[in-house]
Structures are given as C-alpha cells and as structure tokens.
C-alpha cells in the first residue's frame, strides 16, 4: 500500500538567497521516479495542513536519494528551510506524470524560469541529441554548472541584468534565434504562455509543466485544475494538474485565465 513516509533529510543547504537544496533518502521514490514528477512535502506546524508540492530536481540512483530545490515562498517552505540534516520529513511520491520524453528529437530546447528550473535538470539527463537550455531569473541564476556538466549549452537571462542577457527568457530565445524540434518548459505561467505562443508561431511542439494550488496532490479534491481544450476545439474542460499533469502539451492548455 502507498503511504506517506518519514524520510531522512540528507542535506538542506542554502544555494542562493531564499533558495534551498534538499536531499531526501528514499530508495522507494528513486526506484520509480521520472523527470517532471513531484513529491508532496508535509509541514510539522499544525496550523498548516496542506502538502507542499515540490518537483524532483535530481534522482540519484546510486545514493538512493532525490534532490529538491525550493524557494522560501511562505510559512511552509520557511519551516522546511529550518530542518537540519539527519532529521526526518514526511513525504509522499512520486506524484503526477513526468515529461513525455521523445528521444527521437535531435535538437531539444529546454526553457526554465526561476524556481521552475529544478525539474529540468533531471529531464536533461534523459534527453538525446543537442540540448539548449534557456533560463530566466530575477537576478540569481541557479543550476547553471549542473546543466553544463551534462553537456547542455546554457543561455541565461536575468531581469536586472546582473548575469548575462538583461531581459526575459522569451526575449533571449528570440535574440539567439533558438531552433529546435521540441521544447520542454517549466516556470511561471505568464512566461510559459509567452513561450508557448512563440513555439506555436515556429511550429515547435512544446511541453509545459504547470503549477497550481493543491489540497491532496493525488487527484481526489479537484482543486488543482488548469483549463484545457477538448477534442472538439470549441469545448474545454478543467484537468487536474496533480494527476493529469503537471506536464501538458502546450497546445492543449487554454492560457487565457
């Protein structure tokens, strides 16, 4: 039977302002996890009942551990940031469907924005062919060396211009005349929407990993929906980000919300 597990926190370090890297020991998660899936982390604070969904950033087969990278965004993640190595945390996962990896594509474009970047790292490990990673941040890039070590070409945009290109990731894609056969992306919704429009104009198929506020993470509460097209183009339905996603084909998503 599935259950929430108490797992050991092997590492929990600040890697940038308000940004932490956490390693969790769990052979069970490692055994089945795929790039683009996420886990539910649970808070100790009794005032906070709902799980915090966090994407899997790396799956370390040898160590039997997974890596998560999370931003301190509120009370729950603030609580996580104070956990010391060796303590335990309650976790459920892996959850959701990961990226639908197409190894036949020769030229892969990977687009990340801010804390949407982490799940792309494990993804890149599974891609074949050329990989161009376009990342946008407010001011502190993360994971750049890690992507480079995997042989990807990394292109960086920062809003304040503190590193490399000053501007957003779409402007960077345009400026560099990015070309590819497929796009995998994760980041804030406005960024995904903008890139999806660009991809559509270039006729490049694109997968997006979405975020939404969740109550269960396992598909029962119908809380975490995104608007998607049905077979007949005019009609639409709400799909569950946690269970039907978090990865969707961008042309399925209705962005107008």
């Amino acid at each position, binding site marked *: 039977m599935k259950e929430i597990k108490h797992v050991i926190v092997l590492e929990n370090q600040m890697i940038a302002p308000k940004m932490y890297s956490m390693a969790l020991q769990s052979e069970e998660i490692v055994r089945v996890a795929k790039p683009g899936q996420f886990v539910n982390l649970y808070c100790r604070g009794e005032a*906070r009942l709902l799980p915090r969904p966090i994407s899997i950033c790396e799956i370390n087969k040898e160590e039997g551990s997974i890596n998560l990278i999370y931003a301190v965004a509120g009370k729950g993640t603030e609580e996580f940031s104070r956990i010391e190595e060796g303590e335990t945390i309650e976790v459920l996962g892996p959850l959701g469907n990961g990226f639908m990896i197409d190894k036949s594509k020769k030229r892969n474009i990977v687009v990340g924005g801010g804390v949407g970047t982490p799940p792309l790292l494990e993804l890149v490990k599974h891609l074949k062919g050329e990989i161009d990673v376009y990342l946008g941040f407010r001011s502190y890039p993360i994971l750049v060396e890690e992507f480079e070590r995997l042989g990807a070409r990394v292109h960086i945009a920062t809003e304040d211009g503190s590193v490399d290109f000053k501007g957003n990731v779409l402007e960077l894609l345009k400026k560099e005349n990015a070309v590819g056969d497929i796009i995998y992306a994760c980041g804030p919704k406005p960024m995904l929407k903008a890139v999806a429009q660009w991809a559509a104009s270039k006729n490049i198929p694109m997968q997006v990993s979405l975020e939404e*506020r969740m109550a269960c993470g396992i598909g*029962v*509460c119908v809380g*975490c929906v995104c608007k998607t097209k049905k077979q007949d183009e005019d009609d639409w339905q709400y799909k569950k980000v946690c269970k039907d996603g978090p990865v969707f084909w961008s042309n399925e998503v209705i962005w107008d*919300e």
Partner: protein
Amino acid sequence: MNKENLDLKVNIGGVVLKNPVTVASGTFGSGREFAEFIDLNRLGAVTVKGVSSIPWKGNPAPRIAETYGGMLNSVGLQNPGVEELIKNDIPFLRQYDTKIIVNIAGKTIEEYCDVAEKLSHADIDLIELNISCPNVKEGGVAFGIDARMAKEVTREVKRHSKHPVIVKLSPNVTDITQIAKAVAEGGADGLSLINTLLGMAIDIHRRKPILANVVGGFSGPAIKPVALRMVYQVAKAVSLPIIGMGGITTGEDAIEFILAGATAVAVGTANFRNPRATMDVLDGIKEYMLNNGIKSLDEIRGIV
C-alpha cells in the same frame, strides 16, 4: 471484551453500515485513489463526490487556499455527470464490502430529481442530497438556507428516488434546527452535517482574494467546534440519524460527535493531510470503546 466483539453497526435510513466511519463527499473522489492507501473494505460506507445530472465544469483556479488549521475550496462541484459515475465508479466501488452513498447536486429541483431518478436503477445504497454547497451560485446553497425550499426539494427528491435520502445541511444559517426540522417534514431518512462554512482568504502581496471565486467553503479541524455544536443542536431537535462531520481527524474527534448525537461520522479534509485518516479514526473509536468498556456505540450516542 476485545476488538472482535465490539458492535459497531449503525443504521441510516434502513441501510446498515458495518461501522460508523464514512468519508465526506468531495474529499475522497470515488475512492479509487484511496484504494491504493487503505483497504476500502474497512469503511462503513464510501460517500462519493457530488454529481449532477449533466457534467459540470466547476469554478476557475485557484480553487484551494490554506488557512490556520483549515482550508478553503471553491471547486464548484466539477463532476463528469451522474451517468459517468454510474458507468465507471459504482462498479468499481461495488467490488468492496462497503456501502455506497452518492452525493447529488443540482441547480433546480428538477435537476436534483433527475439525478435521483437516474440513480434509482444504479446499485447504490443511499443518496446524500447536497443543498448546501457554498460554491455554486444558482440553487445549491439557496435550498440550504431557506426552510421552505429545503423541505420542498427534499420532498420532491424523495418522490423520485428509490434509495433512502440523507439531506446535507449548510452551517451558514442562523438556526440550523429550523432547516433540520423542515427537511425532516419533507421526508428525509437522515441528515448529514455540516457542509463547509463560507470563508475567505486574501493574498496581501497580490492584493487579491486567493480564490478566483473570491469566497469558498471552509473545512478542516478549525471548524470542528461549530460542527459539533450544530450536530448537538440538531440531534436534540429531530430524531433522524445524523452523519456528523466537520474537522474530524482522530477517533477522539469522532467520539465527540457520537456523544453529541451523531449516528455515523465522516472524515473529510483530514484525508488530504493523511490518506489513512479514516483508518486512524476507526481504530481510535475501537480503542476508546475498549478502554471504556463500551460494547456498542448506542450506549454513549447522544448522552451529552
């Protein structure tokens, strides 16, 4: 005395549940996902999420907000319609030795009756008539805050249903006993309470309500004192069996509701924090009975 010879059976509108533990509609899907976490055979009943006669799209996201010891939702009864439920979920649930309660929604009396009628030939045990969803503007809650309308919709649904009908009450009223009495006059076979309170949360950084729908249904441990008070009041006012709910997380919470007069209890929001919550509640009830030499819950039901 041991766990085996405890008498946990309860009777709701003529249907015997092997134990008093069920789930709150909308917090358990149709049970499929939870079958991976717990043995559904151990539940007295599974209450499936609200269905309407045709598919409902529900409200825009965000639909979920966390609050201190609780949560808000504005799902708005998104569901694939009763026919889909009958085709896919009922046969799945019937594999298990548990009763099936179907929560039904509608915007008009006709819609409610339509669902009830469609369910009449389905292999289910009880209908739970939801007249209290705060997330649907037309109908829904309107029936739950007006005694006359509550009575009328109950009477009509009873006429169209082959199954016993439990009516689920809204807590967002001045006097819940008045609605309970009206519904009893309408012919209800049981009551369930409480549905969610109406609440709100604001994102002070975006300066907007967190929920796209602005307000939403408030549930979880935070609301338990209100739920318990209402179950107590209603149990004193009418003699129908009551499924008590609102924040139940432990066996001790469940015992509080039974002492207040509930026949059965439903676990809701607690399922999100702990998918085994129903089992913990059931085990906790048994433990309390053993520790206190209680053979049947009838000995303590409503004695407060």
